[in-house]
């Protein structure tokens, strides 16, 4: 349908045939061969580093030194992965479990609190709502790494949570971006009439939220959850500071992989692949939502 709209170039009747044809060509916006070729190169470039990890990860220590690059994978991928998994210094299974717990708890918490706050900012009238929302947006621009020293003092010396995944979870439970995102979405997607109807029917505030706002928020909430999950899963700086090698998340375990196997890249890159597989699976399942999430966020942000 959009195709029809886009290709419809209507030149004025006075235009001669040549300009008309030229106008059609310029406005129909059909990609030529070059466009496709460029995209193919971009996508090959996007996939190549992963393929390279696969190549090196399926070889052995000597694969890399071989000057004639063998573009076909070797047969050691499984044994290399097994070696990474069994290495106790890296603690891969533990890291996987920790990453799953941290990312899941953080996503659920951010989505819930962001939807609650976003609903209040988008649809409820209360004193101070505008300055408070402005404050939320303002904090989005402040680099969080600025507070890393006091955060460490609080988590490690006051709460004694050093090495505990709670120290990673607690600071991530809410997100200013999440509140902004849900506010934007709900102010457009949730008609005021629906809320009023529920109130007239006698629903109290939390019932209105639960039965009206929450279902309406579902698409945006799912996208927010996806982004927060990926962001938490790949987060390195703070977990690297507060967690120990005994109880890491996946990125922290990956960093240990390098200090443990820094000579043997076949093991390091097999570990890289292992740690990336869960998110690749997520991407296959939910990549479409990610794409539309980024694009929706762009229009509003």
């Amino acid at each position: 349908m959009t195709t029809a709209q886009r290709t419809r170039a209507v030149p004025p009747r006075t235009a001669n045939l040549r300009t008309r044809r030229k106008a059609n060509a310029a406005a129909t916006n059909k990609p030529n061969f070059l466009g496709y070729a460029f995209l193919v190169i971009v996508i090959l470039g996007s996939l190549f580093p992963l393929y390279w990890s696969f190549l090196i990860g399926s070889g052995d220590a000597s694969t890399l030194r071989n000057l004639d690059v063998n573009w076909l994978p070797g047969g050691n991928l499984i044994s290399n992965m097994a070696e990474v998994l069994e290495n106790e210094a890296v603690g891969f299974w533990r890291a996987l479990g920790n990453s799953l717990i941290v990312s899941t708890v953080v996503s659920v918490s951010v989505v819930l609190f962001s939807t609650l706050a976003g609903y209040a900012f988008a649809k409820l009238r209360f004193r101070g709502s505008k300055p408070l929302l402005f404050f939320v947006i303002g904090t989005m621009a402040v680099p969080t790494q600025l507070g890393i020293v006091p955060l460490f003092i609080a988590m490690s010396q006051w709460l004694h949570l050093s090495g505990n995944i709670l120290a990673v979870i607690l600071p991530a439970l809410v997100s200013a971006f999440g509140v902004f995102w849900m506010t934007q979405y709900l102010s457009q997607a949730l008609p005021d009439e629906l809320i009023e109807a529920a109130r007239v029917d006698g629903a109290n505030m939390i019932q209105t939220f639960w039965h009206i706002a929450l279902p309406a928020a579902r698409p945006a909430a799912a996208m927010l959850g996806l982004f927060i999950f990926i962001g938490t899963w790949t987060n390195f700086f703070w977990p690297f500071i507060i967690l120990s090698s005994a109880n890491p998340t996946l990125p922290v375990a990956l960093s240990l992989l390098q200090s443990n196997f820094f000579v043997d890249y076949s093991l390091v890159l097999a570990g890289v692949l292992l740690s990336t597989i869960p998110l690749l699976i997520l991407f296959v399942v939910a990549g479409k939502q990610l794409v539309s999430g980024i694009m929706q966020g762009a229009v509003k942000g």
Partner: protein
Amino acid sequence: MTQSLERDVEVSRTAPGSSGGGPAEERAIRRIAFGHRLSRWDVKISPYLYISPFFILFGITGLFPLIYTGVVSLYDWHIIGGQGDFVGLANFEWVLGQEKFWIALRNTFSIFIFSAVPQVILALIIAAILDQNLKAKTFWRMGVLVPYVVAPVAVALIFSNMFGDQYGLINNLLGRIGLDPVGWHSQVVPSHLAIATMVNFRWTGYNALIFLAAMQAIPRDYYEAAAIDGASRIRQFFSITIPSLRPTLIFVIITSTIGGLQIFDEPRMYDSTGEGGASAQWMTITMYIYNQGFGASGGGQFGHAAAAAWLLFLVIVIVGLINLVATRAIASNESRSSK
């Protein structure tokens, strides 16, 4: 919904005073009055209840550390001894007097330029192609987004291997076409290029999708009109697309400034020591902060780390403002010339 009404009635029945056995009329009025009061209270308090989890948790884990960084930066503060003497701005003086800080600042800027500029340009081109009537749209859009799900640490490990000085793929390929190997780790600019490549790898597709969304919001009539006037596609891109993208360009440039100047994961994992190279040739400011605060050798200097964090914040604000002004100027020039 009706359930809740009944519950309100129930509540008012058990409320004190209502059991007094007055006339039925009065009781009914009271019931309504009580329910009404309860509901007004509900309406007044609920919004604050809904936003309170965010503000309480953010206050403790976000705002407090930010403000407290200022306090720590004014004290002689060590990881073991804790808060020491008040030293005023001595920590700032100390950091600014360190050669390594200035090297880190230079490196951070250099990596940022190498990543931000090509990334925005490439993302714009990709978006312009994706904006055409492609077959299998979703496939291409998903394709450019794949790198986004690879963790920066993983990206760094892969690229530090490909950019290996001795056995790296890149030098291997350069050698085949008869070029000398490049010191991707040992030299300053090549190491910055390699690290910038990691950033570009992960974020170009993401930013392309943001640009694509903004491009799709541009009314197609503009292009049709321009085409009738005989404007080429290139001309249309610079005179219609770029000016219309102004807010999005500002958004992308500001966010990549905030993120890019804080870069840590990629340079930290670029070699196994994490010190930013033998002569700190790719050490960034955040790595400097990390080393002051938590580094294996000479870490634990919380006062120095906090002061450096404030300086980084200052740098980000200044660069962010410069970018904002520059982007505005560029984009409005474009739109003027298009008229």
